[in-house]
């Protein structure tokens, strides 16, 4: 009895202490919060905040206009205001609200938009759209600098049409507009806008030599110490060069690398990141490897008003690398089919279609593909890509049949398996059922099947990793832990048993 009382006493005291601690902690955090005060640098709102929100590709034709000679600064002002007008118009048609239209359309011109928007509101129609390319020509610029006549030819527009919030159709239009803009209150405003003709969007032409992908023997690559973050501060040429040498000597000829959308600075591609990517390709060239660059990793918005920003991102990267000898081609996005549910297939597929067309329009010489997460999805957009690529983590025995089936379905295209592999993880979460020997055996058998079916391949991945970001696998340990041990080389840099079968059975 006395014993019990003592335990009770101790417990009561402990609880009392704990409550006190919590109260003190709460009060102290409140006090420290109240003591933080305002940030001096933000007091006067002097910081300039300009977020790029609409960046379709704009080309100006050589200046040869009637009237006054136009200078670069005026041209830039016109371009900014004109694109803002399109952006405001797109936003208005999405929401059927008229905010901002009066800044970019003159009093008479805005009536035309108001009428249409009122009609759409009544009919419960909304249009989510964007313009993707503008080709502007100055036709006339007045001597007083207050009026400009433009032609905007082959404007590529994409629209999704909704009625009662249900997607009815999607439309691609390529149109030519004649425009008159007036400088009013410091804004270049649209006074007259006439679409003179419109045509269907043609597929981007590709001159890529696709058969070279048939000889791919490759591997997905992250440095050992910076998985899913190749281009961070620890980017080291020597490490990568040594890795590439290892890959080359193992009998492989290609690596697949990943460019993360946000990490690379979204629409404002960071020059230092781009320089690192270029360096990686240089090192690949030195080691006689080709590189399949996967774009838009970790990107998942796909909203139509984001498209122009995505395009700008892609344009900067693609045009910087398109003449590189080590470049094999472009993987537009890694496993986008996994976003079909959460982001809706109706958003993802048009995004991919457009991005394929866009990348081809910048670089018609390198083949474009999409790294589908499974073989069933690989027929998606097969007409658009230059070669089909998919990932395979299912039963090996089915691969042969599924591959022949896919081959029939996409008869004209080469097919590359761009991810496969298995983990050597052996632990609590899989009841110690795996081992490095099992992994080696898996690769041996897999390579046999690949050889039999002559499937070009890229395995997952060179190294075991100490850490895997949560954004890749989620935080569940039975998912995370195995992902750390897919490598052919362990985290200490020692070759695992599977390394023997990295390029052949």
């Amino acid at each position, binding site marked *: 009895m006395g014993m019990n009382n003592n335990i009770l006493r101790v417990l009561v005291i402990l609880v009392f202490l704990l409550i006190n601690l919590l109260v003190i902690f709460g009060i102290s955090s409140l006090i420290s919060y109240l003591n933080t005060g305002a940030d001096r640098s933000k007091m006067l709102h002097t910081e300039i905040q300009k977020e790029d929100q609409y960046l379709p590709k704009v080309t100006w034709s050589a200046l040869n206009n009637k009237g006054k000679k136009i200078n670069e600064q005026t041209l830039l002002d016109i371009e900014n205001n004109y694109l803002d007008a399109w952006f405001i118009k797109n936003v208005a048609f999405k929401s059927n609200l008229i905010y901002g239209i009066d800044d970019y359309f003159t009093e008479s011109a805005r009536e035309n938009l108001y009428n249409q928007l009122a*009609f759409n509101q009544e009919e419960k129609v909304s249009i989510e759209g964007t313009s993707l390319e503008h080709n502007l020509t100055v036709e006339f610029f007045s001597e007083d600098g207050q009026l400009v006549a433009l032609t905007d030819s082959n404007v590529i527009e994409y629209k999704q049409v909704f009625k009662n919030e249900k997607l*009815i159709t999607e*439309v691609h*239009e390529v149109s030519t507009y004649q425009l008159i803009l007036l400088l009013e209150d410091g804004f270049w405003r649209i006074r*007259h806008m006439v679409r003179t003709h419109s045509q269907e969007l043609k597929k981007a032409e590709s001159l890529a030599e696709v058969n070279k992908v048939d000889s791919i023997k490759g591997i997905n690559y992250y440095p050992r110490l910076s998985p899913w973050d190749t281009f961070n501060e620890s980017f080291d040429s020597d490490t990568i060069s040594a890795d590439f040498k290892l890959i080359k000597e193992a009998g492989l000829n290609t690596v697949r690398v990943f460019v993360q959308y946000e990490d690379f600075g979204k629409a404002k591609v960071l020059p230092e990141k781009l320089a690192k990517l270029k360096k990686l390709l240089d090192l690949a060239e030195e080691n006689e490897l080709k590189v399949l660059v996967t774009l838009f990793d970790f990107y998942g918005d796909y909203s139509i008003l984001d498209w122009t920003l995505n395009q700008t991102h892609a344009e900067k990267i693609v045009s910087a690398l398109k003449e590189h000898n080590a470049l094999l081609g472009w993987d537009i996005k890694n496993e986008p089919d996994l976003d079909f549910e959460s982001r809706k297939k109706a958003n993802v597929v048009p995004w991919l279609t457009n991005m394929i067309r866009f990348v081809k329009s910048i670089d018609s010489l390198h083949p474009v593909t999409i790294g589908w997460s499974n073989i069933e999805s690989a027929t998606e957009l097969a007409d658009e890509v230059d070669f089909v690529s998919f990932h395979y983590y299912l039963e090996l025995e089915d691969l042969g049949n599924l591959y022949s089936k896919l081959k029939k379905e996409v008869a004209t295209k080469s097919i590359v398996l761009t991810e496969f592999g298995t983990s050597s993880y052996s632990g609590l979460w899989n009841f110690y059922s795996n081992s490095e020997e099992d992994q080696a055996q898996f690769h041996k058998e897999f390579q046999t099947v690949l050889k039999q079916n002559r499937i070009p391949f890229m395995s997952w991945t060179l190294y075991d990793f100490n850490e895997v970001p949560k954004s890749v696998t989620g935080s569940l340990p039975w998912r995370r832990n195995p992902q750390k041990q897919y490598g052919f080389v362990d985290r200490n840099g020692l070759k695992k048993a599977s390394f023997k079968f990295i390029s052949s059975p």
Partner: protein
Amino acid sequence: MKNFALTYLVLAVAILFSFGESIEAGKGIDVKLESNKLSSYQVGQEVVLTFSSEGDADLALFYSNSYGSSLLSSTKNGNTVSFKFPKFVSDKIGTIVWKLINQDKIIEQGQIQMKPSKQVVGIETYLGPIFMQAGQSEYGHLVSIPTDSMDNPVETNTEVLVNQQFYSSNVSSSVFTSHLMSFEIIPTKTQSGRISINAISEQISSKELTTEVNATNPEDYEIKAKTNHPYADGNQLATLSTSVIKDKYGNVVVDGTFVKFLIVNKNNSQLFANGTTINGVATAKINHPNEADTWKVSSYIHGMAKSSEIQVQFLAAIKEYEVSFSDSNKNIKIGPIKSYMNQLIPDGLNVQLRVIKGGEIIYKTAQPTSDGIVNFVLKSSLINKGSYEIEVELAGITKSYKNIDL
């Protein structure tokens, strides 16, 4: 309330079912466009697309034109389905793209050209710049956009007659619209004045527009100085003025042209005065000096023109004055100071007093005159006892008194 909810529910379910049915019926639909796929209409005409269709299809028509896009729902009449474009769409020139949609699929598509009208109802004009310099090189633009009753630019190659009136001359010229508008060059004149302009198309005239021709850069000019008397009394104002400043075509410069006068005095100090032109003449006023002086006056219009240099002479107004010591030399009275006609000088002439010992100024002070007199009182707290030299200066005349005991 509950009843309402129930009714809505039933209604919603009914709509859902009917929708489902129509989708069923729409399968394998055979739709034929009655009119031409590529057709053109005069702007303002009613535009109706009619399709013959078997069965009970659920059709919608997407369209887009210069300003926007939307979806039209159909009107059924037996085996024909028609779509009427809203007036604000058929009232605008340019290309309408349409796509017929059945069950989320585009089953037919085409374009309609809304042709611009020939009927001019109004004429938009933009003239600029509204000021030009006289000469041969400058010009303005008159942009005219003849429009129809629905605010569309009329068809290309519409003639616009431009009239320009300048004094007694009247010039007319014809321009033709292209790219929605027409423009005419309005050259400047060598004579300053106002050009009145209007544009006429199909008997519709714009309002009167004007642009002003102003004198171009001024040529060099003359200046003169006017004084009421030649004495350096520090009180009267001398007036500096220019001749009528003109450009090389003889046009008087615009009012408000800024003219700067530069005066260099006998000590090589520079004085400035400035004025702006009225009817080509700029004037500036400046005080006479306090002491005899000869001014070299010149003038310029910054970066454009300058005048010749003139000299202005000022005679001494004060020739002599008296200094008297009292109160053991502590009180020094100067004056009464008299001017050129023996009149007391106007108040405010500055008189300087210096106390010097061994060639070093140990105390100095200054006071303006009042009623022709200045009284200096030297406080013993400021100056030690001893013998000093006292110097008085006014209007450029210095008087010195040695061995004054203070």
